[in-house]
């Protein structure tokens, strides 16, 4: 029974996510006729003195390739294939606890730097990487400088309750957003090790904890 409810809930969540996050570009599109040449042009357009470990950022996994090919709007079968493969990538913290400290999560959500490379304006080495959640989402009411690329997450826990299933959904979604919504605009924070599993648990707490400012006001 509990499983069934969870499935229904997931479906409902996925539906809202779909409605809010999908690009309105219409039907799936044919493959770009010059894609092979375009890929060559793209690869040859970078400074030769970029170190190899920077250039490796241009590598694409299957999900990236398919999302590009279908302009972020893949047909149902491709979408399903991506989501299944992405689900299988999700890893959890060793202690199994998915709720960390909301105070830490709040910092991660507000922090938008880290990971910029290149020769003109790179981040200082060892700059911690933030989740930059506010770039795209409304969260705590007190922060008015929020973006709208993603749906509002204000009162996330208050609206959904903090059952284990919702906690796990929030963790999984942050770890690998494409497991629920192929080609969403949201990065796959866990898959890329952009955030550690522990950091993700802090963001989960920021969303879920009744004491978190996300669920106040």
């Amino acid at each position: 029974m509990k499983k069934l409810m969870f499935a229904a809930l997931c479906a409902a969540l996925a539906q809202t996510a779909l409605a809010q996050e999908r690009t309105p570009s219409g039907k799936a599109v044919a493959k770009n006729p010059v894609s092979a040449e375009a890929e060559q042009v793209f690869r040859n357009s970078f400074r030769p003195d970029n170190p190899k470990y920077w250039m490796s950022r241009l590598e694409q996994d299957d999900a990236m390739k398919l999302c590009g090919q279908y302009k972020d709007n893949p047909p149902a079968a491709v979408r399903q294939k991506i989501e299944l493969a992405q689900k299988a990538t999700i890893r959890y913290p060793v202690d199994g606890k998915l709720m960390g400290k909301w105070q830490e999560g709040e910092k991660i959500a507000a922090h938008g730097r880290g990971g910029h490379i290149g020769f003109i304006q790179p981040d200082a080495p060892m700059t911690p990487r933030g989740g930059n959640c506010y770039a795209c989402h409304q969260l705590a009411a007190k922060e008015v400088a929020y973006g709208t690329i993603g749906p509002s997450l204000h009162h996330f826990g208050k609206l959904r309750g903090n059952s284990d299933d919702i906690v796990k959904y929030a963790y999984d979604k942050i770890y690998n957003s494409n497991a629920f919504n192929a080609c969403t605009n949201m990065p796959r924070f866990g898959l890329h090790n952009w955030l550690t599993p522990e950091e993700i648990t802090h963001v989960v707490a920021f969303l879920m904890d009744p004491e978190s400012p996300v669920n106040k006001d």
Partner: protein
Amino acid sequence: MIQRFIRTLVGAAVVAAFAGSAAAQDSKVADELAKYREALADGNPADLLEVKGAALWAEKRGPKNASLEQCDFGLGPGKLDGAYAQLPRYFKDTGKVMDVESRLVHCMVTLQGFKQEDVTKQWFSKPGTESDIEALVTFIGAKSNGMPINVPATHPEEKKMYQIGEYVFYRRSGPQDFSCAICHGQDGKRIRLQELGNLTTKEGAGTAMKTWPSYRVSQGAVWTMERRLIDCMRQARFPEPKYLSDSIIALQVYLQKNATGTVMETPGIKR
């Protein structure tokens, strides 16, 4: 000239005043931003650079002691009116699709005898180091002010560059799964408080493209389109593109074709 300079100083003071109050509610902030753009429209620091670019255009320079006045941006030697609004385009003499910057550098090499690596060393300005290219592009861009962007991309090479640009626009990679489309593929979105144009539409691409080159208040400098796009790649957490490289030119063909029909308002002024 002196009047222009005074206007610029007044403009700078207005920027400073408004920059201080930028953290209020979003609608308020948007209003303030609109107001200060309006206030600055009459005192854009880019005006100074445009004057400098005009002088550089006519000055005999380089090993060949020649001016740039015979440079052909697609409408004939020295014909600048409306040229910027019709770039990038295919050039028979090089067999390449070129944007304003690659064509300008081509002329500095062929007409003036400069070495490409020398003239592109300062392709953008830094505090204390000015860029001739920035000044010249501002001057050339202003010669298209009030004219419609017109890049139909009908030549087969232009069409191919459009398709390459479109491919790059949607190509995802890097540790944040970014492509241009992530932020610029939908209508009516914001990142933090910054409004984002949907660059796949005429309206969005037009609004974005019509004001370049543009004075960027947050950077204290005029940015060319190459500078803008190379910084987009930085924000996407990609390695650094080569200046004048084909994917940067291809993206411009994609954006200019999408923006075609939009009237230029350049040099612009932006956040």
